[in-house]
């Protein structure tokens, strides 16, 4: 199937998101779509698949003008969309999830579970997925859920598959499998539209790259004919110097230490230290238990055993409130669910953990609060009109900066960052790294959980690798390599 989109325009209210985009897909190619957060990539795909209507422009499929009324129609026509925001039904089983809206049924409308089960098993086999079809989706890891999304799309026999950041939650191994599948698909003349912020993947898998910036398609070139720096330059409109900024902070005394942290069946005897000015990277496979460890430290989930020390003093943390009082901040891995109140203003979001500090005679001093928020927004270079903008109106990277602003605002001595750059574009990523460095310069102890290996290597002073709830090893910056980390992470020695 050949798809040609020309002059696509789209506004949401006064916000014109797409201002004339050209984009085409050829049979059997992997076409990467790149651009900063908010460039309009997902919106363009939503228009193609009929979720949104374009204001202007034309879509031709195999030469014929075509407009889908809704995503189902596009899917029936052979265009399947694996969305960036996962579209799962947590309370339903894997099998039910795979077939929602397209169940096999007999004449009486009764669903035919056996048939569906057979197809699902076949597809899982092809994908190398070993998941219980009767498991509730809510019990699966984000990565496993992502695999379901992929399987769902494969089962539709689509001619064009759109993958919007499919690997954001996948492990290296799962990514390998995905890439193999993509290869078999393209061999069968299926085309893939591949959206990702991970450069190395783009160069590994794509045939062509289209770069979008501010709602306009800037350029389309053959992957073989371009390179990393060129793509980045087109995306951000200028040269980015080194991807991972140099870090010069002075690493001093131990600020934060945990001993023997244990939560039954999740992690055992976790002990580590973080020094002032140090960034400690936590690596490991998806589901290794890193998030669980951090949540327990921060008092979100209870600990069965273990001690926490801050500046040499033993502290007790029962809930996030007490962690915050001690000066610990926690950027969660899921900013939309746990990091932000999307409908609320940036000011309300930023001041939330420190709101008790703005009381004057029992009343919130909103002037001081606004100043506080704007100050932090300036320092973090948050792109927004004012502190009264709704958090939902910002791009992913800017939203992430707002969450960071929250925790910088409490004057954290220890900052735990769980996947701080997940879904964030290159430009914003770099700004976040710079921020981390600045904080380290001022003596903050930083823990960074990340599934992005290059990031772990580029940013951390020291790497701790977690394997099945245990610390499998520790590597200094000079020792750490991808191979060594992977070996520890997979339990191989």
């Amino acid at each position, binding site marked *: 199937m050949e798809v040609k989109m020309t002059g696509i325009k789209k506004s949401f209210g006064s916000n014109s998101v797409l201002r004339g985009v050209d984009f085409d897909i050829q049979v059997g190619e992997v076409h990467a779509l790149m651009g900063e957060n908010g460039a309009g990539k997902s919106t363009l795909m939503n228009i193609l698949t009929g*979720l949104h209507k374009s204001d202007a422009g034309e879509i031709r499929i195999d030469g014929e003008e075509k407009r889908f009324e809704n*995503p189902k129609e596009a899917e029936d026509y052979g265009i399947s969309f694996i969305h960036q925001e996962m*579209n799962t*039904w947590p*309370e339903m089983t894997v099998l039910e999830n795979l077939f*929602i*809206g397209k169940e096999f*049924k007999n004449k009486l409308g009764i*669903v035919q579970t056996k048939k569906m089960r057979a197809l699902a098993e076949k597809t899982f086999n092809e994908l190398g997925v070993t998941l219980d079809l009767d*498991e509730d989706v809510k019990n699966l890891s984000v990565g496993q859920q992502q695999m379901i999304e992929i399987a769902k799309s494969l089962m539709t026999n689509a001619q064009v598959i759109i993958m919007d950041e499919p690997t954001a939650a996948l492990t290296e191994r799962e990514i390998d499998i995905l890439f193999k599948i993509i290869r078999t698909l393209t061999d069968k003349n299926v085309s893939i539209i591949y959206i990702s912020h991970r450069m190395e993947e783009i160069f590994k898998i794509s045939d062509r790259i289209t770069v979008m910036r501010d709602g306009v398609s800037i350029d389309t070139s053959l992957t073989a004919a371009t390179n990393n720096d060129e793509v980045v330059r087109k995306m951000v409109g200028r040269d980015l110097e080194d991807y991972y900024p140099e870090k010069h902070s002075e690493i001093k005394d131990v600020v934060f230490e945990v001993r023997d942290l244990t939560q039954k069946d999740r992690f055992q005897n976790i002990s580590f230290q973080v020094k002032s000015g140090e960034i400690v990277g936590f690596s490991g496979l998806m589901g290794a238990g890193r998030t669980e460890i951090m949540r327990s430290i921060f008092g979100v989930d209870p600990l069965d055993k273990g001690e926490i020390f801050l500046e040499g003093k033993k502290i007790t943390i029962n809930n996030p409130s007490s962690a915050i009082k001690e000066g610990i901040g926690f950027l969660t891995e899921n900013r939309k669910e746990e990091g932000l109140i999307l409908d609320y203003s940036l000011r309300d979001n930023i001041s939330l953990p420190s709101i008790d500090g703005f009381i004057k005679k029992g009343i919130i001093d909103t002037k001081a609060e606004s100043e506080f928020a704007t100050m932090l927004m300036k320092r973090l270079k948050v792109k927004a009109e004012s502190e009264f903008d709704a958090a939902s109106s910002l791009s992913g990277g800017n939203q992430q900066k707002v969450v960071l602003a929250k925790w910088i605002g409490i004057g954290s001595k220890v900052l735990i960052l769980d996947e701080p750059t997940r879904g964030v574009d290159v430009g914003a990523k770099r700004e976040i790294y710079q921020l981390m460095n600045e904080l380290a310069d001022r003596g903050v102890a930083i823990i960074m959980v990340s599934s992005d290996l290059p990031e772990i290597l580029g940013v951390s002073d020291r790497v701790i690798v977690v394997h099945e709830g245990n610390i499998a090893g520790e590597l200094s910056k000079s020792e750490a390599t991808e191979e060594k980390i992977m070996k520890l992470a997979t339990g191989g020695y």
Partner: protein
Amino acid sequence: MNDIKESKGHSKISLGKLGPLLALIVLIVLVTVMNPGFIAPTNLLNLLRQVSTNALIAFGMTFVIITGGIDLSVGSTLALSSALMAGAIAGGLDPLLAMLMSLILGTVLGGINGLLITKGKMAPFIATLATMTIYRGLTLVYTDGNPITGIGDSFIFKYVGRGYLFGIPFPVILMLISFLILFIVLHKTTFGRKTFAIGGNEKASFIAGIKNDRIKIGIYAISGLMASLSGIIITSRLNSAQPTAGGSYEMDAIASVVLGGTSLSGGRGRIVGTLIGALIIGTLNNGMNLLGISSFYQQVVKGIVIIIAVLLDRKNKK
């Protein structure tokens, strides 16, 4: 991890699923010990007949609650459809036709709720709160506040609420048939799948091509239909249509659904649970009457039982 799997429990029988059933059994044993008359077959049939009217409404409510909605208007729907039916019968319409008309009317009244909620984008609570008032007002206007009588000659009409088939009260049979049909619809058909899907993730369902609005309208229509069916039974049993009929029935129905383990936040639920929930409420009412507990204390006990049952259920699922 184990417990999570259990609470879902496919094929496997799980504690979470058994929670409401256990509660019911405990209750039955307790009441029987205190008054053995309780398990006399005649009383059990009597109990089942009492349960049937609430259970029917609760079945429809189960669909509504699974989508994350609520239907406060069931009692008023029951009253309005019954009043018009009784009026029609008293006016000489064939009772069978009148009953059919009542069912259609209930469906339409439910459908109006669905329209307000989908096309009007109103919160189900407030939409059905409004129609609850409106339907009740219309009933009062139509009946002028008086019960409608003079409907009692037709055997068929009497039979619906007061007949016996093989010794089983006919309302009980109606309840069982409805249960079976709705069980299949909810758990075996695509309509049921879609009901769950909407409750679980409305946006994703839309993207998956489910016509959310259509399904929801259908679901509220089912709720209205069940309310009017319940109304036919009540009208037949009382040999008259009462303008105040069904007042606060929504509460018992909702309590039955929740006692049965269906979550008010939507996306999860079982209609078997609702049947058990309705039996719990019915056993409480009947049992406490048998035990001669004053109606004042009955209310206190009923509230406490709801709390305990929900807390236990929560615990099992943990």
